[in-house]
């Protein structure tokens, strides 16, 4: 390749606020002597500027001497060029070095000229298909297979070079005719722009709130069906738990364990569900507002805010088509198998022996036959295998994006299909559409529109129970391994397999049990207008319209179960279900939102001010109706009036909220940062005279690393950035438990109760209680103190935050105003109590590059604990009452129980045991039974011996952490995410604890490890120890099964959540097929879990274990661009 005349390093950062005082930008140099190249690259790395020069005019390898190691760029250049005929100028985002006279020569020339150039990335690899456009025209081209382009342009023009995944570059042509352009990847650095709320954004470096962000690359490395699943473990300050893995299931996310956060998608306030069902490939970035910076969103922001920005096209970029797809295999990550026939029968017979039964249900001969398992009628059956299998999940997304000089666009369509792991059981499908388009109408006016739509579809057989996934799980344990699903093993005749007819999975299918379908059609339409009133002041308006429509149809058939008559070879009916169930729910949600603001942004010298004044309104209607009918035949699916017996009109449930907001942000020289904001909010829930609240907040930051004393000291060679910040604010919440909208009104409630009088059903009407006029907002005071530190030239980043949220005004009654029960009403609640969330979160990341090997390792941790705080004049009967029941200034969700203290080893130990362990004089005890600590030393085990032994069983864990590793080498890339949690409790119950629960089975891990008899037919035979007490039928109230640390365990875990290995095919191969990029990958989810919880996924909460397990998925996928 011919050596280029000019070598241009160009990089532009997309700043919302351009740093206007370029000459004042400072750099730090590692030594006083260096080559020109080294100096320029230092400037480029440490500032937003790139240096443009000609290597015929400046020898890049010549050595220069700089006197100060820490200096202003301009001083440095002045020094460098002092003895030359070169000059420099700052233009846009680059520094151009040229001969003092050169410019005038060039400017004399007019007319068109031909420019040729090469586009490469920072590693020097050529970029094929990058768009090169002459600014302000439609004149453009794209780079060829060698990354080269040639274009005829006017001499004074500017070229815009863009390519997906890279930052756009602008360079002016001037007198250059050969250009070499390097595009910088759009990665996250200090230059990253962070959405701080209400359409505002800020450079990360000048941020003062506790806001974490995550970009598209980190999100898409997941095969979760919902966006929440893709976020788990990736952001500091987010607690997560996936309790249930059913198709379409989401992960519970909480910011710092404060409760369900508010979701804001492209500026519009939305809920969890709307967020979860975005196609996360359409998400550009997510910002998590963890502290008072959330307050800008008003009355629903007290639990933090998740701000989502979807992808947009780029101005002046080539049209790019991307295809992303994967196909995966799902299996259960962890699920405890039920005991097999031998284990079950051994325990069962042993139990009968110990309980003195002589009339054994299973005789010795039968037992032997079952153990052998070959004779007809004595073959055991694997219910787990019969019901559950590996099932597919696949995904396909196509998107088109690009932009001209004035207009940019992004269109995307995606489809996800996730089948249930239960055989022939349907699953979840979702089709998403996203369209974003923006156009600059003239210099001052910009308009945009976006649409986000989806169709969500859930389908499965119409089986009994409200939750159709429950029976197939229950059936695994409820059906004994000695039962078979079909009469005479004839698959046409499902039989009764347990006393609960619903447990025979053989009839839980579309043919025999009907069909359940739930479909949501959802559309969010947004329109926005931005008008530049004068330089620095803009008016913006955003209007949103949301419509969601649900149609749920469920039909459960009548069915028959059969026996078998050997002699006549017939199948008599032994059970008949005559409950045809047909229901339909029609619901829709309609939401109107508007958001109007004036935004000001100005820089004066070193002062930078932004301000916003805004107004926001939302109104939501959610009418719903439900009907039930009893169809006369299974084949009839239409509902008619004659068979309908219930029509329930749930009404509109209108919500309306208004808010005014003001925000001001000031920074001085990027050093001293100050932010103030406030909200004035109104909610329809409260009476007219008491519905507005004012909520201010403020934050400050100090970038110590920008100070001269710091930069001149030695620490600056280690720390590339050091910022401390603090925020404090008041956030209101109108989500008040126990207070319904209109509780301030008197009168009568219609549709309340009712009875049959005069032979007809008359809906009731009831007088309302005393009007509640004493309750108002809950006020959350949120404090956050944090630091952002970068070391070693930003290779190592560290962020730490301490936070505390105190919520005042939780509703409670003044119990010292004693309203006698006899008057027939309760004292209305008032804002009296408070609670507190406290903790820390931190994130650390290391990024480095060794030749062609680029890697990063990151970790994050969130410790967030809730306390019950001030209680209204707490009062207790005695000190035990206070110890046990006080919640004043205590950890919330304390889980009490007995402390298990090993097991009785032999009969002698029981007879001499001094403590009454079972409250029956120890006469029910056997060796292997659980001993309890007599904590209060009163000789008897009872509730007075209970102590705090655990944490919440269902909430998100107090401690969550994630480890994220990435690496690329040549065409290969690897991403690994670990997630973990601790400080949550699991309480084994029902199937996981009670012997032969409800006549069913227990898990293998449990049954096979019990104290047992050497000879199960002889109660006097030797006892062989095991981990669990001997299982005895009907014994589930025994002291063994009391609430204790034996069954209630504190769970910790670490999971390999995502592992993805990809390979980008070399471009030389692809270009023949006109493909720009082709990446294939293999990915795994939940590949392994380390935990102290036996049998089940540690994130499950159900004590019975009957919760749809999380899935292990292996995917093969492909990303294609052309």
């Amino acid at each position, binding site marked *: 390749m011919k050596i280029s005349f000019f070598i241009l390093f160009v990089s532009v950062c997309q700043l919302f606020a351009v740093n206007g005082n370029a000459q004042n930008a400072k750099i730090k140099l590692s030594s006083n002597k260096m080559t020109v190249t080294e100096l320029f690259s230092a400037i480029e790395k440490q500032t937003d500027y790139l240096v443009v020069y000609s290597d015929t005019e400046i020898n890049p390898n010549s050595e220069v001497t700089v006197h100060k190691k820490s200096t202003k760029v301009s001083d440095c250049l002045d020094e460098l060029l002092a003895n030359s005929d070169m000059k420099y100028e700052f233009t846009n985002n680059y520094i151009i070095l040229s001969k003092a006279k050169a410019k005038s020569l060039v400017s004399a020339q007019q007319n068109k000229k031909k420019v040729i150039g090469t586009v490469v990335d920072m590693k020097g690899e050529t970029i094929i298909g990058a768009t090169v456009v002459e600014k302000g025209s439609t004149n453009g081209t794209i780079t060829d297979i060698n990354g080269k382009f040639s274009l005829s342009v006017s001499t004074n023009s500017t070229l815009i070079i863009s390519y997906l995944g890279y930052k756009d570059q602008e360079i002016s042509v001037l007198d250059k005719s050969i250009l070499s352009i390097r595009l910088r990847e759009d990665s996250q650095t200090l230059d990253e722009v962070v959405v701080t709320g209400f359409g505002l954004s800020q450079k990360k470096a000048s941020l003062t709130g506790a806001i974490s962000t995550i970009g598209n690359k980190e999100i898409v490395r997941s095969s979760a069906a919902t966006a929440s699943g893709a976020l788990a473990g990736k952001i500091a300050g987010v607690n997560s738990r996936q309790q249930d893995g059913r198709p379409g299931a989401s992960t519970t996310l909480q910011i710092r364990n404060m409760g369900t956060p508010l979701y804001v998608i492209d500026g519009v306030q939305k809920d969890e569900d709307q967020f979860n069902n975005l196609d996360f490939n359409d998400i550009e970035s997510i910002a998590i507002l963890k502290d008072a910076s959330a307050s800008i969103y008003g009355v629903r922001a007290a639990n933090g805010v998740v701000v989502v920005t979807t992808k947009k096209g780029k101005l002046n970029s080539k049209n790019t088509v991307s295809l992303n797809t994967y196909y995966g295999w799902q299996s259960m990550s962890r699920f405890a198998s039920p005991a097999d026939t031998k284990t079950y029968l051994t325990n069962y017979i042993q139990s009968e022996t110990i309980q003195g039964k002589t009339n054994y*249900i299973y005789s010795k001969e039968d037992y032997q036959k079952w153990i052998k398992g070959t004779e007809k009628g004595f073959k055991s059956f694997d219910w787990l295998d019969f019901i559950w299998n590996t099932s597919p999940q696949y995904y396909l997304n196509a998107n088109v994006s690009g932009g001209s000089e004035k207009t940019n666009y992004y269109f995307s369509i995606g489809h996800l299909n996730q089948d249930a792991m239960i055989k022939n059981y349907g699953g979840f499908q979702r089709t998403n559409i996203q369209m974003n388009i923006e156009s600059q109408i003239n210099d001052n006016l910009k308009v945009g529109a976006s649409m986000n739509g989806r169709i969500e579809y859930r389908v499965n057989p119409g089986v*009994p129970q409200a939750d159709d996934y429950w029976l197939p799980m229950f059936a695994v344990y409820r059906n004994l391994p000695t039962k078979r699903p079909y009469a005479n093993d004839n698959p046409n005749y499902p039989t009764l397999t347990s*006393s*609960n*007819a619903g447990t025979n999975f053989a009839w839980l299918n579309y043919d025999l049990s009907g069909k359940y379908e739930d479909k949501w059609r959802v559309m969010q339409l947004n329109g926005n207008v931005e008008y530049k009133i004068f330089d620095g*002041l803009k*008016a913006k308006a955003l209007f949103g319209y949301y419509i969601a429509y649900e149609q749920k149809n469920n039909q459960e058939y009548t069915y028959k179960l059969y*026996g078998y008559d050997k002699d006549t070879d017939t199948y008599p009916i032994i*059970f008949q*279900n*005559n*409950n*045809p169930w047909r229901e339909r729910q029609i619901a829709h949600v309609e939401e109107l939102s508007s958001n109007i603001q004036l935004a000001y942004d100005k820089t004066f010298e070193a002062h930078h001010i932004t301000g916003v004044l805004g*107004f926001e309104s939302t109104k939501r209607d959610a009418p719903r109706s439900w009907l039930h009918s*009893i169809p006369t035949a299974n084949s009839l699916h239409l509902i008619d009036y004659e068979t309908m*017996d219930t029509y329930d009109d749930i*009404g509109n449930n209108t919500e*309306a909220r*208004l808010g*005014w907001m003001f925000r001001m942000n000031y920074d001085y020289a990027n050093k001293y940062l100050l932010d103030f904001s406030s909200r004035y909010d*109104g909610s*329809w829930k409260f009476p*007219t005279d008491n519905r507005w609240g004012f909520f201010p907040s403020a934050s400050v930051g100090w970038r110590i690393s920008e100070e001269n004393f710091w930069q001149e000291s030695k620490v600056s060679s280690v720390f590339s950035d050091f910022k401390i910040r603090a925020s404090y604010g008041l956030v209101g919440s109108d989500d008040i438990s126990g207070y319904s*909208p209109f509780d301030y009104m*008197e*009168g*009568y*409630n*219609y*549709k309340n*109760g*009712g*009875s*049959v*009088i*005069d*032979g007809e*059903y*008359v*809906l*009731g009407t*009831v*007088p309302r209680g*005393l009007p509640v006029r004493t309750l108002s907002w809950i006020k959350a005071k949120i404090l956050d103190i944090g630091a952002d530190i970068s070391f070693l030239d930003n290779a190592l980043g560290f962020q730490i935050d301490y936070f505390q949220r105190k919520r005042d005004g939780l509703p409670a009654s003044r119990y010292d*105003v*004693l*309203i*006698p*029960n*006899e*008057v*027939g*009403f309760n004292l209305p609640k008032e804002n009296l109590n408070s609670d507190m969330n406290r903790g820390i979160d931190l994130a650390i990341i290391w990024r480095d590059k060794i030749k062609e090997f680029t890697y990063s390792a990151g970790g994050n941790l969130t410790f967030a604990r809730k306390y019950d705080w001030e209680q209204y004049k707490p009062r207790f009967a005695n000190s035990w009452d206070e110890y046990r029941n006080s919640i004043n200034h205590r950890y919330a969700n304390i889980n009490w129980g007995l402390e298990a203290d090993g097991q009785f080893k032999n009969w002698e130990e029981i007879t001499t045991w001094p403590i009454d362990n079972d409250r029956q004089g120890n006469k029910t005890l056997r060796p292997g039974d659980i001993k309890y600590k007599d904590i209060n030393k009163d000789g008897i085990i009872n509730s007075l011996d209970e102590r705090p032994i655990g944490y919440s069983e269902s909430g998100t864990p107090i401690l969550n952490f994630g480890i994220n590793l990435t690496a690329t080498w040549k065409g290969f890339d690897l991403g690994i995410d670990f997630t973990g949690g601790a400080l949550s409790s699991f309480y084994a119950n029902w199937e996981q604890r009670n012997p*032969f629960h*409800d*006549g*069913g089975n227990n898990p293998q891990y449990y049954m096979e490890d019990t104290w047992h008899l050497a000879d199960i037919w002889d109660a006097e035979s030797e006892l062989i120890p095991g981990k669990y007490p001997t299982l005895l*039928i009907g014994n*589930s*109230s025994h002291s063994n099964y009391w609430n204790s640390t034996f069954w209630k365990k504190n769970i910790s875990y670490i999971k390999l959540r995502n592992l993805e290995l990809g390979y980008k095919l070399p471009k030389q191969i692809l270009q023949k097929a006109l493909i720009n990029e082709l990446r294939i990958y293999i990915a795994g989810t939940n590949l392994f879990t380390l935990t102290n919880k036996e049998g089940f996924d540690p994130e499950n909460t159900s004590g019975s274990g009957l919760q749809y397990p999380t899935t292990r998925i292996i995917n093969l996928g492909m990303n294609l661009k052309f």
Partner: protein
Amino acid sequence: MKTLYITLIVIFEFFIFSGCNDFLDQKPDQILTNEQVFSDPVMIKSVLSNFYGRVSWGEKINDLYSLTILDDAAKTDGGPDYRSTFENDRWRVYDYTLLRNINQFLKSLRSSTAIAENEKQQIEGEARFLRAWCYFNMCRCLGGVSLIGDEVFDYEKDKDIVTLQIPRATEEETYNYIIDECQQIAPMLSTKAQKNSARANKWTAKMLESRAALYAGSLANYNNKMSSPIQTSGKEVGIPADKANAYYTTALAAANEVILSGVYQLQDAKPDDKARNFYEATSIKTNNTEVIWAKDYLYPGITHGFTQYNIPRSHAEDIDNSYSGPVLNLVEQFEEINTNSPGTLSNFITKENGEYKFYNSADAPFLSRDPRLGGSVLYPGSFFKEKEVVLQTGQLIKDGSGWKTITGDLNSYDENKNLITSLNGPKESNEQYINKTGFYFRKFFDETPGAATRGRRSEMWIPYFRISEAYMIAAEASYELKNGKAKEYINAVRTRAGVKPLQTVTFENIVHEDRVEFAFEDHRYWDMKRWRLADKVWNGNNTDRYARHRRLWPYKVVAPGDSNDGKWVFIEDFLFMSPNARYFKKENYYNFIDLDWINKNPLLVKNPYQ
């Protein structure tokens, strides 16, 4: 230009803001004003309907497991039920919210001009009847309670709450208030029978008056016969013994008035099938002359799950069945028709001279009993909806020279296709949906197709008052007043039932008659309390036949060639499912006054033993 833009935007935002409060004033869907309600007879009836829906308390069939609390039935759903003692708030009622609601309603009703005066009288009478009924339900579990009359209390911040504190009335005053109210409202109410007896009329008021007076009379009587009568110094609990006769007289008079009115008769439409007749008298609404007041159900509208939960497995229409069933303790109360001691229980004979007693059919030991058994309980070999209820635990087979029993899975057969264990059990097991007592309910079981499905459920009513109660009250009051008429009243009930009339009437006969006549009708618990028998019978002794649930299991004899082949034997035992005897302590005669109530109203006094 710039200024213009700013001005325009500020004006625009101001415009939006000025509409703010309108925007936030949303209209609720389900809230009506006082005026909207009381200007429309439809809405007035709607409020009344709400009140009727809120007055079911105590043991009731629409409350799953409610019938298993006492000694009439047991839980058979899953593993053992360790219940033994009675909670100190068992069936406690303290519904001052309802009383306030009724008073609010009365106040507005009296000033309403939307309905005619006579209609207003009827509605006021009904509302006051429901209020009196509520007081009665409170008084029978707590003793005397605070009487608030027509008062509608209110509260504003800083109001003196002492004025809101009302002490408990005495037990006597409370019963008197109920009786007075009934006497006052009886003339306001219709004298006609109401559709499905769902609304109160004059006779409902009379029945409540009569029952309240009987309760008060027997408390005055039997409490004072205890070695240490249960009472408080202020007589919030405890009625002087000398008041007994007056109460019995009131009870007798009111009951007699109902009997003599002729509006209701002891239903005897099927004298040839007394079991069916009794079932229809209690459980069929059509052409019913028996039931005076009931909670009615209607499909579509409001239904309950008694049939659905407890139906025999062989008759199940949905997954649910066999949640609970009657125990032998109740079944043996139904006397042998040919007994030498009418009016008392007849034990089942399962062995004679140490040998099994062989019966010719599964239903033989039951057919010879009080026909009300067949109307109240499904026993082995009985029929429901014209289909046999097969109950068979196992077989009795030859074991050398003796006999032995064998059992199997549900619906299991031996090699010769003889049934071993029937689909209905009974069986010893900790499984759900399996009968374990040997009996199912009959009374209040709904024969309508679909009544046992989750999608429809049952529209069986729940009677509060039947005419036979008027007879039984009259009988008991007469017995206590020793006026010689007890025999006449009790025999009316017995004759209708199809059992021998009594020659003389003893107290035990009355206790017995009430138990079999009103099984599952929320009488027994309150009767046992007012007679002060509860602590004696439910003594917590696990070996006591009457304190602990028992079962009677049927076995079919399978012994080809033996003369007893094909016959049936029965084995009686304590019920595995109920390992503990019922244990009623003296403190259970009155529920505890909740400490929270006392906290809020220091004028309340605690109940004895509390």
